[in-house]
């Protein structure tokens, strides 16, 4: 309610409109709330006075479940964190355990992990752009983005046998090598994805409606972004050039040539443009990967952590016993604790692992990139229009699977 400090209205026309605050429940099941998130907004007219987020509807006890299974059995659980880019979660978890084991992985496995991650980064960004377009009224964009994404998911099916839940990594390497001629198929798909990407960008970047709804809305300054714990494209959109692939390179990212796009305004439009530019960079990375990848082993040959080769399992009693011990008891990760971080599609994906020397994780802490960003939404949206909540929610890219664990 606006306070009226005028003593007496000059005429009835100048009298203030009687207004009352309204409380609106968005969600838990609302088309614009990805997954099931409940946002309670208190409105004064169309502007948000106060907002609260209520999460937990999708909570399925990720950490507790992982503490009760062996280290390798955690991979399917990590798939379901950010279900749009499952391989990146696999890689993040595998690197955390390998850090604790101090296990070196073969070079080809590193390249394959980077390839899987970058394909999934493209999928993740395409999903975001498609959903953002759709929720702002551009249905065509959604269809184009999903066409491009499904093309890449088909390639991933050929690589690891599943579209979404890839479970591609193993501790010490990856599950399988890429099929014959797969690299050429991926490059063909990337050409088509590039066409669709430019078409999508042509439809959105100079679109009056899209610009009006995204430019200058959901602004996060550089200081705010750091304080809120932003990461990834959202942090870079606010002007902070921070990318873990450059700041602390892991796998083979130091041998690849790519740029880090940085925004200036920190609004929804910048966050969208970050995604478009990162699609271009991931395309570039993938093409380099296929040139640079060499032949070799795809999994380390350390008998403490890796299953023995199948001929040995079926041919010798030692092989059977070794296989049995690893499957039934789990690998014995040395006691200790480690925090490992990777640059996932939305930012820093961290795993804090604690081992007591047994076959199961003692603690598996997950730092999901979308978590602090979703938490900051009520601060960003205070005093803004309700209509701006939709593009902001989209561009922050809250993924229910990882935020609610």
């Amino acid at each position, binding site marked *: 309610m606006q306070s009226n400090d005028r003593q007496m209205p000059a005429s009835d026309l100048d009298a203030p409109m009687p207004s009352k605050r309204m409380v609106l429940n968005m969600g838990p099941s609302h088309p614009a709330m990805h997954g099931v998130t409940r946002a*309670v907004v208190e409105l004064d007219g169309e502007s948000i006075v106060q907002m609260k987020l209520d999460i937990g509807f999708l909570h399925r006890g990720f950490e507790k479940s992982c503490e009760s299974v062996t280290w390798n059995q955690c991979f399917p659980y990590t798939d379901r964190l950010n279900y749009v880019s499952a391989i990146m979660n696999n890689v993040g978890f595998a690197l955390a355990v390998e850090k604790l084991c101090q296990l070196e992985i073969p070079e080809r496995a590193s390249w394959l992990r980077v390839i899987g991650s970058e394909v999934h980064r493209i999928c993740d960004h395409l999903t975001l752009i498609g959903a953002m377009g759709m929720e702002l009224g551009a249905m065509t964009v959604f269809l184009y983005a999903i066409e491009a994404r499904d093309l890449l998911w088909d390639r991933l099916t050929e690589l690891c046998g599943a579209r979404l839940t890839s479970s591609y990594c193993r501790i010490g390497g990856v599950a399988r090598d890429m099929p014959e001629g797969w690299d050429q198929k991926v490059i063909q798909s990337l050409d088509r994805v590039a066409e669709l990407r430019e078409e999508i960008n042509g439809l959105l970047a100079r679109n009056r409606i899209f610009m009006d709804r995204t430019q200058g809305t959901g602004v996060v300054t550089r200081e705010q972004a750091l304080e809120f714990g932003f990461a990834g494209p959202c942090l870079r959109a606010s002007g902070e050039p921070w990318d873990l692939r450059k700041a602390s390179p892991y796998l083979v990212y130091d041998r690849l040539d790519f740029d880090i796009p940085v925004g200036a305004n920190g609004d929804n439009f910048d966050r969208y443009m970050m995604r478009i530019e990162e699609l271009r960079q991931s395309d570039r990375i993938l093409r380099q990967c296929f040139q640079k990848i060499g032949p070799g082993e795809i999994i380390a040959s350390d008998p403490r952590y890796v299953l023995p080769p199948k001929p040995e399992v079926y041919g010798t009693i030692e092989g059977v016993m070794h296989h049995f011990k690893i499957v039934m008891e789990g690998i014995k990760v040395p006691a200790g604790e480690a*925090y490992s971080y990777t640059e996932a599609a939305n930012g820093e994906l*961290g795993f804090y692992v604690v081992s007591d020397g047994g076959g199961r994780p003692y603690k598996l802490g997950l730092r999901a990139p979308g978590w602090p960003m979703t938490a900051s939404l009520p601060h960003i949206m205070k005093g803004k229009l309700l209509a701006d909540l939709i593009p902001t929610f989209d561009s922050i890219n809250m993924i229910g699977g990882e935020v609610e664990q």
Partner: protein
Amino acid sequence: MSKAVIAALLERFPDAVYQPYVGVGGDACAFVQKDRIADVCRFLRDDPAMDFKMAPYVTAVDYLGANPRFEVVYNLVSTSKNHRVRLRVKVPEAELSVPSITPIWRGADWFERYCLDMYGIQFPGHPDPRRLLMYDEFVGHPLRKDYPLKGRQPIIPEREIDDLFRGPGPAGRS
């Protein structure tokens, strides 16, 4: 290097920071006295040579059987200096509270609420100390090691929605 940060902390807070060590993979780590963690964090944020503008991850661990039983782990990062430190705070079961660092970095908000929800650790100074993922009527703290994997919860009677803003829940909840 990140080890210089730990050295500076030891010099500045000789009575609060103890047992520095290098973790696996070369991480710079140290233990901090429970009551001083907010001071240490504020120094790390405000000192221009440290410039820790971000707290990417705060979590807790339950070392059942050890004394003190709980531990809160702070992973901090300085994007300008590319430094990372991990500070660990031991929390005894008898006194389950750690000063909140949410006033220092607002990004720690939901991480602290998560620790409250899952481990029952209180964070005095937190602006909105409520459960994060579990519902209010949930009994116990699910990530504690003595909470069973298939724990059962009592059935909650259906309630009148008396306050739309706060949602259904126990009447008179603050």
